């Protein structure tokens, strides 16, 4: 685990209706190895019906590979979109979990409010 999170993951906007527009996820982090290439995974809980809307369809997990994380604190961002599959969701908040896999694994997450 060589990735150090300097500032936790944030989302903009933090509240959304379904389907959402573009949601930007930001984070500041660095590698204590002076730099390393990591894979970043965003995951939604499988118990509700909110999914990521991607070019490949509606998925519960997004994998981003080959991202270079430098040795100094650096802000990076990813953009996602959410959509309901089937009926209306029961949940009021959606958690997007992030796992960064490099030398080890580092976790982070961000919570969004889902408005009726």
């Amino acid at each position, binding site marked *: 685990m060589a990735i150090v999170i300097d500032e936790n993951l944030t989302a903009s906007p933090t*509240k959304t209706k379904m389907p959402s527009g573009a949601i930007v996820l930001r984070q500041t982090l660095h590698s204590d190895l002076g730099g390393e290439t990591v894979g970043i995974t965003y995951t939604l809980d499988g118990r509700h019906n909110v999914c990521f809307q991607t070019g490949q369809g509606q998925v519960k997990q997004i994998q981003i590979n080959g991202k270079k994380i430098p040795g100094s604190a650096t802000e990076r961002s990813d953009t996602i979109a959410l959509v309901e599959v089937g009926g209306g969701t029961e949940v009021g908040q959606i*958690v997007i979990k992030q796992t960064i896999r490099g030398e080890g694994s580092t976790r982070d997450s961000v*919570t969004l409010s889902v408005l009726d």
Partner: protein
Amino acid sequence: MTGPRWGPILTEAGALRTLCGARGRAVARQDRRKGAFRLARLTLGVLLLTAAARGARAQAPTPVPPDADFDVVQVDLEGQLFNRTLPFDVPFILTGTVPTGVNNLEVRCWELPSGRDESSGSPVKLADEILQAKPQGNCWQPEGALAWRNTIDPAAPNPTFRLMVPRLEAERYYQFKFSFEKKVTPEDALAFSQKVQGIVDGILWGDASLTAGLPLSGDLTPAEIQAIRSQLIQALQEVTGADRVTEPGSVFNPDTPVAAANDEFNLLLRPVRNVQGQIDDATEDYEDEIADLSPLLAQLRADPLLRKLAAALVARAAADPSAQDRADEVAAALAVGDPPVLRRSDRQSAATLAAFVQASAPYFLDADAKLSKLADLLANKLTGPDGSPAPAVQPLVASGQLSADDLAKLAALGQPTQPVGTADRALTRAGDLLGARLAGNLASRAAAVGTLAEAYRTHVEGMSIIAGSTTGSFATQNRNYISADTGIVCTPELSECNTYAGTNIYFRPINKAAPLNQFGGFFQTLDRRLSLTLGLTIQGVGDEKTRADLFNNQSLLLGLGARMTNSVRMTAGGLLFKKLDPNPLADEESLTTTYFLSISFDIDVAPAMQGIGSLFKGVLPGN
């Protein structure tokens, strides 16, 4: 019109059995005519007097006080007491003071079961479920609650309310609830915000007895939101004494739709929940770190090459004190213990987790410094750029305590991705995880909870709430069984009419201030009309020839009466007097009765008919 009706009733009743012969019949006929005439006069006179009395009363110049004709009951909302037994059968005025700032007041009433609690002897109070099943009360259906609105000035100190309360039944127990609408004060709002902190802190963090991995994270469900909403509403009620919140649209108002409440809670609770997810991530990362770090430190402590280096430095320090610091650094690094383990008990609350972070800081400060020095020694100070032994360790190589190969391997151990370098980085990361990331998250959470509490402080301040106080069980009056009256009693068989005073004993409590017609027709109100009458004639019925009074100049009346109006009663029954022997030489007497009919008036209306007695004196037979 009354005279002819009375006439036949009395005159057709027949002669007294004790009179006999033609003289007796003639006297009886004469008396019947006189009696009919006198009764007609008397009846007319009574009616006129009654009308005059009513007219005089209606035209009385005295100002009518605000509570005229109504009983007034004072209520002490703080003491939850009434100042008197409640009247029955008649509306009454309920009055008292409400706290400053109250806009309106609602009064609800529940009739209590007739039974009593066996242990206390008190009336059985209604269970909350019953009260909630009939939230508007059950005394005045379908009216429900009585309402008073403060139309003067809500800011005036202790405004007085006055409410007209519909009639209650006699001999019953009632439970009253006074609910008044007021605004949440700044003091209450502040106290509530402090409670919000405790509630949100506890509920959102989670219950350690139910969940192993605290704090709670993940999706916030409507059920969790509902639980938080319920507790916040309860807290607001406790702080303000409110029964319910009436502020339109507020999440504390039970009428606010669940969807709207969910939206608000989702927005307000999100920052706390969000950072809790990040706390959970950080603690899991920490657990992963020390899961790798502890065996790595154990491996270093047991590493033969590092132990060989340590031994060589100790031996060298004995001969050369300048080597002592290096010897101590290596020994200290190899003595670093395992990192603190985050236990379940450390995660049971934000406070316990913060305490763990604080308690762990010295370990990481110390261990990281020691491993950093060891890593630096190994990576940078054992060999030169060309791999040759550094001057400080040349004596160790020269003495054969360490080989060049040992030095190369030791130098490799100190590289960032090798065991010592890895342990050094892991200690730094774990220390930062606790000291920077987790501590920062905990601080962010505390700030988010504080922001939430402040948001609710401003949210509830000035909000309209219904506060209430419930009185205990209060009884209506139950002793109004007896009344007194006076009137005219006529005994057709004696052909006489006399005045009398009597006592009426009812079969249920009677409030004579309650108009009979409000309870229904004659037969529907029979229980309120019928009474036993026990009385004494004021003038005697004796003639000293055929009859004598029972006591001196008075004879006893016993009958069954019915109120025709609130104060006028018709009674029929028996008159008890003494019968004299018609033989003037005999001195025997015996008790006998004759039936009577009477019309009477309650004693409390008699003063309105002053002078009626003199009229009776002139017209009544036998006077």
